[in-house]
C-alpha cells in the first residue's frame, strides 16, 4: 500500500450520464489520484431507469458504467484507487453485481470489495407515506402528490455522503449508489479520509463546495467557459478536474499535467454559480453550504485554491425527486433557404397552424422557433439582428398534449409542407418526428427520519 499523503486527490470522471467516455480512463492513468468520482444522475434519469427496470428487473442502472469499469478496473486495482459512483440508479444491487462479474472476468476476484448504497427508492413506499400524512407537495407549485399519484413512475430521496462513508469504512473499493447527491460522492471520501465529524458543518460545507465544483466534469476546467473561450488551450485533450483536499477543509482544483483546458478563477466562478439558487443556502442532506463565504485564489497555472467556506446544520428534511407521466410531445423541423428565408419559415408556420386548427386538433402548447433568427434569444435577438438577408432559417415547431393521437397527427403535417408549402425548403432527411412520452419532474420534501439508507459491502 502506498503511503497516504496529507492531501486527498479526488478526480471527476463523469459529469453526467453521456459524458465523455475517455475521461475516466484518462483520470486514472494521467497521474496519481486517490478517488475517482462518477456522477450519472440528472433529475429525470431515475424515471428512464425505472422504465428500463420495469421491462427487465436486472436493469435500471447506468449501463455505460460497466464497460467503463471493464476498462479501468485493472488499473484501479493496481493503483489502489477507489471509486464513488451513483451509477446504480434504481438498481444499485444489479449494478454492483454486474461490476462484480466484470471484475471476476478480469481475474480481480478476491482483490476488490464493492459497497452498495440503497434505501433512496421510495416508489414502493409511496402509498404508505401518503397514508401517514406525508403529502409530498410539489416544491414549485404547492400541489399535493395525491393529484398525480396514479401517474408516478419513480420516487427517490436524495441521500447524502454518510452512507457512502459507511461503505468506505466497511472497506469498499468501489461504492455504487442510487440517488446519492452529486456533491456527496466527492464529500464522502474527504469525510472518510480525514475523519470529519457529523457536526463539523464548515468542513462538510467545504467538501460540498468541492463536490459542486467538479460534479459537472470539465465544466470547471475549460469546457463551456465563456471567459476568453477562444484562448482556452487544447479542448480536444481537455483535462477533467481534480480536487486536492486538505484535512482543514481547504482544497485546490487542478488537473493532470499535459492535458488541455484551463483551471482559472474565472472558470471556477462560472461553475460555482451554475444551477445556483440562494447562494447563502446551498442545501444538501449533509448540511447547508454558504457560497458567499468562498474565497478563490489562483495558485499557479491550472491551480485554484478554495478556502473560507462556512456551513450550517443540515435541515430535518430530505429532497425527493419524483417522476410522473405528463403527456406527449413532438418537435418537427424544416430548413428554408435564401432569399426570404425567414419570411418563408414564418409562412410555413402560419400554414401549419391553420391546418392543425382545421383538423380540429387542440394542444396544451404549440411553440414555434426560428433557428438562426430567434430560437435562443427570442425578442432580444429580433431587436438587434437584420433578418431579411439570413442565408437560411430552420423552422422548429413543437406541440404538447395529453392526447397521443393529436401529437401523432401533428407529426404527419410536417413533411407535406415540402411540396405543398413555401419554396426553397430542405433539411427533412431525418424523417417524421416521433411522439415522445413526457415524464415530468416533481420535487418535494420529506421528513428525514422516514428514510433509512442501507449499506452493504461485498467481496468480489
Amino acid at each position, binding site marked *: 500500500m502506498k503511503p497516504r499523503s496529507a492531501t486527498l486527490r479526488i478526480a471527476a470522471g463523469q459529469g453526467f450520464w453521456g459524458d465523455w467516455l475517455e475521461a475516466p480512463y484518462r483520470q486514472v492513468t494521467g497521474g496519481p489520484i486517490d478517488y475517482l468520482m462518477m456522477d450519472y444522475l440528472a433529475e429525470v434519469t431515475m424515471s428512464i431507469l425505472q422504465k428500463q427496470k420495469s421491462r427487465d428487473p436486472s436493469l435500471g442502472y447506468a449501463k455505460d458504467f460497466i464497460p467503463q469499469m471493464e476498462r479501468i478496473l485493472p488499473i484501479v486495482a493496481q493503483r489502489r484507487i477507489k471509486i464513488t459512483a451513483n451509477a446504480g440508479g434504481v438498481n444499485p444491487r444489479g449494478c454492483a453485481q454486474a461490476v462484480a462479474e466484470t471484475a471476476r472476468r478480469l481475474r480481480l476476484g478476491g482483490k476488490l470489495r464493492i459497497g452498495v448504497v440503497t434505501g433512496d427508492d421510495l416508489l414502493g413506499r409511496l402509498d404508505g407515506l401518503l397514508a401517514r400524512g406525508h403529502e409530498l407537495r410539489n416544491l414549485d407549485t404547492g400541489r399535493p402528490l395525491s393529484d398525480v399519484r396514479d401517474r408516478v413512475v419513480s420516487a427517490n430521496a436524495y441521500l447524502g455522503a454518510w452512507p457512502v462513508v459507511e461503505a468506505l469504512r466497511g472497506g469498499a473499493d468501489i461504492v455504487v449508489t442510487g440517488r446519492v447527491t452529486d456533491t456527496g460522492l466527492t464529500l464522502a471520501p474527504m469525510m472518510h479520509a480525514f475523519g470529519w465529524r457529523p457536526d463539523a458543518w464548515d468542513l462538510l460545507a467545504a467538501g460540498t463546495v468541492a463536490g459542486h465544483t467538479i460534479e459537472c466534469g470539465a465544466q470547471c476546467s475549460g469546457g463551456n467557459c465563456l471567459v476568453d473561450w477562444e484562448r482556452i488551450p487544447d479542448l480536444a485533450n481537455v483535462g477533467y478536474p481534480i480536487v486536492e483536499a486538505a484535512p482543514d477543509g481547504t482544497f485546490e482544483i487542478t488537473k493532470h499535467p499535459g492535458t488541455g483546458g484551463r483551471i482559472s478563477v474565472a472558470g471556477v*466562478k*462560472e461553475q460555482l454559480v451554475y444551477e445556483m439558487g440562494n447562494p447563502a443556502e446551498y442545501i444538501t442532506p449533509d448540511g447547508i453550504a454558504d*457560497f458567499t463565504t468562498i474565497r478563490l485564489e489562483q495558485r499557479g497555472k491550472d491551480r485554484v485554491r478554495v478556502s473560507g467556506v462556512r456551513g450550517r446544520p443540515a435541515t430535518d428534511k430530505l429532497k425527493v425527486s419524483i417522476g410522473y407521466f405528463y403527456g406527449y410531445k413532438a418537435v418537427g423541423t424544416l430548413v428554408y433557404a435564401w432569399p426570404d428565408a425567414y419570411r418563408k419559415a414564418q409562412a410555413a408556420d402560419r400554414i401549419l397552424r391553420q391546418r392543425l386548427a382545421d383538423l380540429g386538433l387542440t394542444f396544451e402548447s404549440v411553440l414555434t422557433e426560428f433557428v438562426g433568427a430567434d430560437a*435562443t*434569444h427570442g425578442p432580444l435577438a429580433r431587436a438587434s439582428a437584420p433578418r431579411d438577408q439570413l442565408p437560411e432559417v430552420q423552422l422548429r415547431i413543437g406541440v404538447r398534449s395529453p392526447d397521443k393521437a393529436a401529437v401523432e397527427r401533428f407529426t404527419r403535417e410536417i413533411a407535406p409542407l415540402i411540396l405543398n408549402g413555401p419554396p426553397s425548403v430542405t433539411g427533412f432527411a431525418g424523417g417524421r418526428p416521433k411522439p415522445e412520452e413526457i415524464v415530468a419532474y416533481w420535487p418535494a420534501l420529506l421528513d428525514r427520519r422516514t428514510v433509512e439508507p442501507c449499506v452493504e459491502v461485498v467481496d468480489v
Partner: protein
Amino acid sequence: MRKKAVRRKTVPLVELAHARSGDKGDTANVGLIALKPEYYPILVKHVTAARVARHFKGMISGPVERYELPNLHALNFLLHGALDGGGTISLKTDAQGKVFSTALLRLELELPK
C-alpha cells in the same frame, strides 16, 4: 446657475461581465460575474432585478430574484417561468436555460461618462 446635464454612455454588459446559466424546473438561473473586481459595484447598482425583468419581458412569465456574491464579484438571478414548464415538459430549444447567460449579456447599461 445652469444645471449641468450628466453625460452618459451606453455600455454593453458583455464588456463588463461573463455569465453561466442553468435550470431548476421552470426557473432559469443566470450567474453574472464581473470581468474585473472594479466592475462589480456597477453591476450591483445597475443590473437590478427590475432591470433584468424588463430586459426579459416577453421571455419569462414569472418574477426575477437577485442574490449577491460579493466574494465572487457575482450576482445570481433566478428567472421564474422562463423555460416553458422546464426540463422534459418544455418545447424550447433551450429547455435547460443554457443560453439565458448570453441573452442577459445583451443588456445595455446607461452609465455616466
